[in-house]
């Protein structure tokens, strides 16, 4: 059981690092999704460990939320991308003071 | 009830004044301040010399915080109230033309803010609930801020901000102590802010000291004492003299008032524990204030600094814990109020004429304007503590008490008198005497209005100089009570 947790932790960390290091908004965004899925893995693993279904149900809902996030995220990224023709986080610099 | 009226009247006045058209505003404002004066006098007549809190009224304000709307006056409070109600009309009259500069709108807001300030100050002097006191204590700052920032000389904006920051800082530190008191009372099982309840608590040593520090810092900033006085000179320099009178003669009294009311009243042990430090600070303020004053070139700055020295005397008087000292201190608060007001106003008129506050640029005023010069001289001598003028009495009392406390303290205090005489006379000499300088138009003498404004102050100085009895009658019971609280029970003050 623990190896699943370890795996999810590793995935989570990868996503986390990705968010912090990558510069392309879409990639950052995918890293976030990776984090969410790591959470799903952890949930399911724990659910199996504790022998109740809560974790798996949660995984369902997380999927929904992730989907919603994808939709909204893509929308936002597309608009800004069309405005300044680049999806790099660094280019979004007007707010740095 | 009467006290509530006393507070609400000027507040109402402020609102009305702010609303009526400019031409009327000054009259209305003056009218309200006069009415307040009347009410104040009524309060005084209602007051019986027995001491203790009188004319009290108590209502629950914020139940779940144990806050009450509680008013009452004791001797100290009464004197302060009287000082306030007397000075405000005078200030308004003095500012009659000065605020003209800003146009009617300026005059209107000047009067309105002044009345608001009066209301708040009265509330401060009559509040008997710590939180209520704190609230109005802070609330005085807003009108003061706009008075300083709105009227006076260039750079007043900075001065106003500096003033407000200092005061707010002190206030917030004090807030911590206020809350501390509340928590202590809550732990004692009855969360309340009433002074009467709080006085009943016995607070353990360390807590008491912490709370004391909080309160004392705030009051030290208010009544400027040595390390935290720097806002004073700037403010008095930039603001109009009327404002300065309000600040130095009324608002700053809140500091010493608070020391008596809270430091001694609620935290006696801690007060004694802190005495050495406080006394030293007081002495430093006395000497430092006097010395710096001597060198000043700006009249208003100079006067401001002298009152730093005077507040040193007051604090000294309070913290030597002797009936004499206490009495002297309180008496000093009144006298200083009158004397400094006189000084500021005269200086104001002078500056109004010469157009400059720089001592270097005026000379030989006494020839062209003898009356003005006369008032100026009296004011100066009063500040210097000339026998026969009221400050002399209080100063003597304090110094005597100081000697009782420790000969060193006393002698330092005496030294201050010499310095005071020096700066007062030298200033007079530099400004009034000597050949009037070429190119400077001779100064017009005071007109009837101005004399009318100054006269009552002069009378008060002389009267109380020879016959301070009525004041002492009011003061002594209070001093006795508060010293009893501290644990020094010996009887009576000087008769």
């Amino acid at each position, binding site marked *: 059981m623990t190896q699943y947790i370890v795996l999810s932790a590793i995935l989570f960390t990868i996503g986390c690092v990705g968010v912090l290091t990558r510069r392309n908004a879409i990639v950052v965004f995918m890293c976030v999704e990776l984090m969410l899925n790591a959470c799903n893995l952890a949930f399911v693993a724990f659910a199996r460990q504790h022998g109740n279904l809560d974790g798996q149900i949660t995984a369902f809902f997380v999927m929904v939320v992730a*989907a919603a996030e994808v939709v909204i995220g893509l929308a936002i990224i597309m608009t800004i991308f069309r405005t300044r023709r680049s999806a790099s986080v660094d280019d979004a610099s007007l707010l740095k003071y | 009830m009467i006290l509530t009226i006393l507070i609400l009247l000027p507040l109402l006045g402020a609102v009305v004044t702010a609303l009526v058209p400019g031409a009327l505003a000054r009259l209305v404002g003056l009218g309200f301040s006069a009415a307040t004066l009347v009410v104040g006098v009524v309060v005084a007549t209602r007051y019986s010399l027995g001491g203790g809190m009188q004319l009290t009224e108590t209502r629950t304000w914020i139940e779940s915080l144990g806050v009450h709307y509680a008013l009452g006056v004791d001797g100290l409070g009464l004197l302060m109230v009287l000082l306030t109600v007397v000075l405000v009309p005078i200030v308004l009259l003095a500012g009659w033309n000065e605020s003209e500069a800003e146009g009617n709108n300026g005059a209107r807001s000047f009067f309105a803010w002044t009345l608001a300030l009066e209301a708040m100050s009265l509330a401060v002097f009559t509040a008997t609930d710590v939180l209520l006191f704190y609230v109005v204590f802070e609330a005085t700052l807003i009108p003061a801020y706009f008075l300083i920032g709105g009227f006076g000389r260039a750079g007043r904006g900075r001065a106003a901000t500096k003033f407000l920051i200092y005061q707010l800082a002190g206030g917030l530190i004090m807030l911590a102590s206020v809350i501390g008191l509340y928590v202590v009372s809550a732990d004692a099982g009855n969360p309340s802010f009433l002074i009467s309840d709080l006085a009943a608590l016995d607070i353990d040593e360390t807590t008491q000291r912490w709370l004391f520090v909080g309160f004392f810092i705030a009051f030290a900033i208010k009544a400027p004492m040595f390390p935290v006085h720097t806002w004073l000179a700037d403010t008095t320099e930039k603001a109009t003299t009327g404002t300065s009178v309000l600040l130095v003669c009324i608002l700053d009294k809140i500091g010493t008032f608070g020391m008596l009311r809270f430091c001694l009243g609620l935290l006696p042990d801690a007060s004694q524990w802190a005495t050495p430090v406080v006394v030293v600070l007081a002495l430093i303020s006395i000497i430092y204030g006097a010395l710096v004053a001597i060198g000043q070139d700006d009249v208003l700055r100079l006067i401001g600094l002298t009152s730093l020295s005077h507040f040193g005397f007051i604090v000294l008087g309070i913290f030597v814990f002797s009936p004499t000292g206490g009495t002297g201190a309180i008496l000093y608060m009144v006298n200083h109020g009158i004397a400094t007001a006189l000084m500021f106003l005269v200086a104001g008129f002078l500056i109004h004429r010469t157009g400059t506050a720089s001592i270097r640029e005026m000379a030989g005023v006494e020839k062209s304007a003898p009356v003005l010069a006369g008032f100026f001289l009296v004011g100066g001598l009063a500040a210097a503590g000339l026998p026969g003028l009221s400050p002399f009495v209080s100063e003597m009392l304090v110094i005597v008490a100081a000697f009782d406390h420790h000969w060193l303290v006393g002698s330092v205090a005496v030294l201050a008198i010499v310095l005071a005489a020096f700066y007062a006379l030298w200033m007079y000499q530099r400004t009034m005497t000597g050949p009037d300088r070429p190119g400077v138009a001779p100064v017009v003498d005071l007109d009837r209005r101005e004399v009318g404004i100054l006269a009552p102050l002069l009378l008060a100085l002389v009267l109380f100089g020879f016959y301070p009895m009525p004041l002492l009658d009011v003061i002594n019971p209070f001093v006795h009570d508060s010293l009893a609280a501290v644990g020094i029970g010996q009887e009576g003050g000087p008769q």
Partner: protein
Amino acid sequence: MELYTPVLALALLATGFAVFSVVVSAFTGPKRYNRAKLDSYECGIEPTPQPIGGGRIPVKYFITAMLFIIFDIEIIFLYPWAVHFDQMALFGLIEMVLFIGTVFVAYAYVWRRGGLDWD
């Protein structure tokens, strides 16, 4: 788990086959170099240069993808509901009607806003 091992077997078999054919075709076929042959085919005209990482993808496809996600999620919820429908008969029906109704609101909105019209 052992329910899935056969799948693994089949998958390995298929992968082996696919990889094999990809590899083998490299050897079986002739090698006659010709630059034109390596250009991407555009009916003979000079091929339009492609930006790195593939051409730009029309927004329309993103929208389709988003819609697909939404409805796929809905389906995800429908399946277990359907399988266990008999147990929670009426309650299940009402809840699911509400659920479908909610999704339908969004669907109607997208439709009206021309999200479903392929220009």
